[in-house]
């Protein structure tokens, strides 16, 4: 608001050459008090999400719920069909012949859990997402090849264009770029 003539800024992005530098930089940024940031890498790095202060994902719980819903609905569907909606005598077996319902119940459990895992992951990640400001940086195309990026976002309380840039420069990045919003 104070500088209406400048284009809106999403954040400042530092580029690194290897994963060690990125993890170290993320730790340093957190120590310096920055909270609103994200790190981008072409491969999963185990330590990285902890370094930027992201600890837990609810995904396992979602998958568990998906599995339980699949299991119950698969079994109850068969029970209802075989005992209530369409009861027919098959080789003298009881209408609720539950052991025969196990294979389909099992497959429905798997299906429910797998759908929950994939769509839960996409939903929590906010994908599909047609636009994101980080793509405004031309060199960000290398984030899917061999470069590692740390972006401190403008909505961080401590963010200041000049101050944060100076801080990022101390991390020995390849370069620091302003990310337009």
């Amino acid at each position, binding site marked *: 608001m104070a500088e209406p003539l400048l284009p809106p800024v999403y954040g400042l992005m530092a580029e690194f050459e290897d994963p060690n530098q990125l993890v170290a930089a993320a730790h340093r940024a957190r120590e310096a008090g920055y909270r609103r940031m994200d790190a981008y890498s072409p*491969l999963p790095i185990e330590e990285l*999400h902890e370094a930027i202060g992201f600890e837990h*994902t609810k995904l396992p719980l979602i998958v568990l719920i998906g599995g339980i819903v699949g299991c119950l609905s698969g079994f109850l569907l068969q029970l209802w069909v075989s005992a209530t909606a369409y009861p027919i005598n098959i080789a003298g077996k009881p209408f609720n012949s539950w052991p025969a*319902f196990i294979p389909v119940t099992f497959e429905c459990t798997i*299906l429910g859990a797998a759908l929950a895992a994939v769509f839960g992951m996409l939903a929590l990640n906010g994908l599909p997402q047609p636009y*994101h400001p980080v793509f405004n940086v031309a060199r960000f195309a290398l984030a899917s090849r061999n470069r590692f990026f740390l972006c401190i976002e403008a909505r961080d309380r401590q963010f200041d264009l000049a101050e944060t840039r100076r801080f990022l420069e101390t991390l020995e990045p390849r370069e620091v770029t302003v990310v337009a919003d």
Partner: protein
Amino acid sequence: MADVHPSHGDPAATVNTAASRDVIAPGHTFGTITDKISSIVLTQRTSIGWYLGFLTAGAFAVLLLISLTYLTVKGIGIWGNDIPVGWAFDITNFVWWIGIGHAGTLISAILLLLKQTWRTSINRFAEAMTLFAVACAGIFPLFHTGRPWLAYWLFPYPNTMGVWPQFRSPLIWDVFAVSTYATVSALFWFVGLIPDLATLRDRSQSRVGRMIYGMLAMGWRGSARHWHRYETAYLLLAGIATPLVVSVHTVVSFDFAIAILPGWHTTIFPPYFVAGAIYSGFAMVLTLAIPIRAIYGLEDFITLRHLQNMAKVMLCTGLIVAYGYTIEAFMSWYGGNRYEGFMMWNRMTGPYAPFYWALIACNVVIPQLLWFRRIRTSVPALFILSLIVNVGMWLERFIIIVTSLSRDFTPSAWGMFRPSFWDWSTFFGTIGLFVMLIFLFCRFLPMISIFEMRTLVPEAKVEHEI
């Protein structure tokens, strides 16, 4: 390993041993891996060989279309199936294709859980193979119904006829098992592709390529938060797919084991079908991997170590299958049931005996060559062996289905099955469709997982520092 065999004097052998240990050739970086794999899709010119292969396979796929159209118009009488052999090529091919698919899931899920890093360079196209094999498999029961346009009757849905599926039948279990398997395999494959689609989006030179890969990548940007959830989802999917893959061929074997027909009614079927599925699947992975690595120069990524490991899995599952055959034969004698005894005698000496002995040769005798290190490290030998196992596993399903049906309890109900032209054309048609889809996949999608290969580079290892 190299030091264990000091007797190898010639330098070629030393190079061989060194290469057989690595899962990736030395000297690669994040950039070279990305460029090499993505260039197959993005920049290399499509070779004449690709067009020739694609068109040949496509011609067989057209033959499949013709066969299925004619079948839909005339009915399944155009096949050689007749009472008593109501299941013949169709179910043989169905079980064969489904089994082939199993290796893809095994490589991508079970070997991931076992932290076998050598799986990384073969899992992507093994998963694609799974998907295409399941698609080919699905064609057979669908058209064997005779009225494929009513196949949705197999699913439970409220209808004006007031009827519902019969859930005590293994055939309906099969519908659920195979459709779940197809869905989960497709999801697993697509999730694995997302980061690589983002790579293709960022590296594509053409506008159309950027748009298509961009839409498929769904805005993936490699954020650490995303990677964390992604890895969690991938691991959970692997954990879910592992019992699934075992259940699918178990349920397929129930289609037989729950019937009272001699030769089908046996409790050894589930484990022996699952082992057979993995056996044939690894054979198919080798059949595909060997030409692909030669054509696209991927020897750096699909090394001799991969081929050797696959050969070892084949040897192991092949021995389980051999054990299954032995127990089948033993129990038919030891069990004292005269129908079972006759069934086995008929298999070994009856009208289909040449196929039985060909099956034993292909699946049990010849693969014993894999005990020899020289065979396991010889690429042409592995290729030929993989083809032999593919044939053997097809014969196994044919023998199980056709010999039992053609000679059941009363001689007055006996009959022979002879395949018609349309049996063969449908079968070879699905092979054509499968190969055509593999060609398209190699051309338009990264056939090796780029992001997982990056994790194998030494620089990917992060040392702990706070």
